[in-house]
């Protein structure tokens, strides 16, 4: 009897140890986290003259990693290689002003949104649409329905018969297609560069994008003839926000970052970074 019991005990211990080892091997301890950014998406992330990647997401990433007790490595990756790179293990997180959408959720997991900036219209200062819409003003569609509706009607009136440019697969494209397709031509672009080039050559009359990149574009010398016009919308179709992209198999890391984000929201750190880089508060 005793030998049998000892055998069972030994077997149980071995099994337990084996399981502990296995789960230990499977669950990474996340001492280092590799984060992929483009370094070309001003002001989310950009490369400064010394070759360093800086920006809102760099500050936020360093902050969050400190909170979860990991060392962050940020590496540059062009957008096309970002998705395969995450899946293949080149990095563990994507932070690149990536919008949280249902379609993308099928392939990867997202953290909570760390920014939900308003959208902004950009047009030439001396254009008809600029005159019709006037300078930019924030309008929250979800919070104030009446003001939101009025603003949308104003935009529809000003853009009648005109062409608006948006980046494809974004909340702005959704907004334009939902509210403006009936009165204006909606031109979708694969990249914001293409859209901005068309705006400069007057192929389109007005562009719609997130406030931060528009503000960053307008700070450049060649954009001196352009300005933000019309309502800066928040809420409704713009609700999703931007978040960190992670592999579905790393749910533990996602949870860690979400906890860190909660703390960062609570003590105002995220707001500080937002004010520093965007000049407005983009906290969701």
């Amino acid at each position, binding site marked *: 009897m005793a030998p049998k019991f000892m055998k069972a005990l030994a077997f149980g211990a071995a099994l337990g140890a084996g399981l502990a080892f296995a789960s230990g091997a499977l669950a990474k301890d996340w001492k280092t986290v590799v984060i992929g950014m483009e370094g070309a998406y001003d002001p989310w992330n950009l490369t400064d003259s010394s070759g360093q990647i800086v920006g809102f997401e760099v500050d936020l990433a360093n902050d969050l990693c400190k909170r979860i007790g990991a060392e962050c490595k940020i590496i540059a990756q*062009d957008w*096309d*290689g970002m998705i*395969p*790179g995450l899946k*293949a*293990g*080149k990095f563990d997180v994507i932070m690149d002003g990536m919008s949280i959408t249902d379609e993308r959720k099928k392939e990867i997991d997202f953290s909570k949104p760390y920014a939900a900036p308003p959208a902004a219209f950009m047009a030439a200062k001396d254009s008809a649409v600029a005159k019709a819409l006037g300078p930019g003003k924030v309008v929250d569609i979800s919070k104030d329905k009446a003001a939101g509706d009025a603003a949308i009607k104003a935009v529809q009136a000003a853009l009648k018969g005109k062409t608006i440019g948006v980046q494809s697969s974004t909340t702005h494209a959704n907004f334009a297609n939902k509210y403006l397709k009936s009165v204006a031509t909606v031109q979708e672009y694969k990249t914001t*560069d293409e859209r901005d*080039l068309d705006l*400069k050559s007057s192929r389109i009359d007005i562009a719609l994008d997130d406030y931060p990149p528009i503000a960053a574009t307008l700070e450049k010398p*060649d954009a001196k003839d352009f300005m933000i016009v019309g309502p800066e919308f928040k809420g409704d179709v713009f609700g999703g926000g931007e978040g960190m992209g992670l592999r579905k198999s790393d749910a533990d890391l996602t949870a860690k970052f979400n906890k860190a984000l909660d703390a960062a929201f609570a003590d105002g750190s995220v707001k500080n970074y937002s004010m520093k880089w965007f000049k407005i508060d983009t906290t969701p």
Partner: protein
Amino acid sequence: MGDLGIFGFGPGGWGLALLEGAAMTLLVSACGLLIGAILGALVAWARLSGAAVPGAIGQAYAALFRGLPELLVVYLVYFGTSTLLTSAAHAVGYEGFVGVPSFFAGALAVGVISGAYQAEVFRGAYRAIAKGELEAAVSVGMNRWLMFRRIIAPQVLRFALPGLGNLWQVALKDSSLISVTGLTELMRISQVGAGSTHRPFAFYLGGAALYLVMTLVSNQAFEMAEARATRGMRRATG
């Protein structure tokens, strides 16, 4: 259109960058042509051997890459090589990620497409060899390697020159598509310069001029090579 100073070689000038881009174009096209030559020779050999399966594979490869847009092939090779290499590395136990530089992906894309056409050139060139020469070689007891080295290879190269000259030009032009991967060849430099100085007309025209110089010089070079290679041969025309 303004001054041509932007093309200069001074600090503000893009002349040097454009020339470097042209050099990169030549390099990546040459590598692509070489890869294409290897693939083309393999496919030609597969089809000429008469064996059913290799011949079918060769034919399928050629048909596939002649029927797909070159730009699509560039994207597929660019996206695919990283993933493939990483999976292969994982299979042999390597943990990390294997990145593939855009040069290699670009040259491979150009090569894979070129190979599909080079196969036909090599096949036609081989069949142009007088059967009598091959029979004579066998009758004097030459083994297959000697026959290849002395009779087949030199003549295939000679007959293939016009076709290869054309395919070199095609490779030069196809290399401009590699710009979408970010490789700093001539097209990409032109694009960056155009965006940076807001003078797309000047830069794209300048880039086009450099491409034209490359193709015209290449044409001359190939014509001279053909003249040398076919000296002493009787030809159908004068």
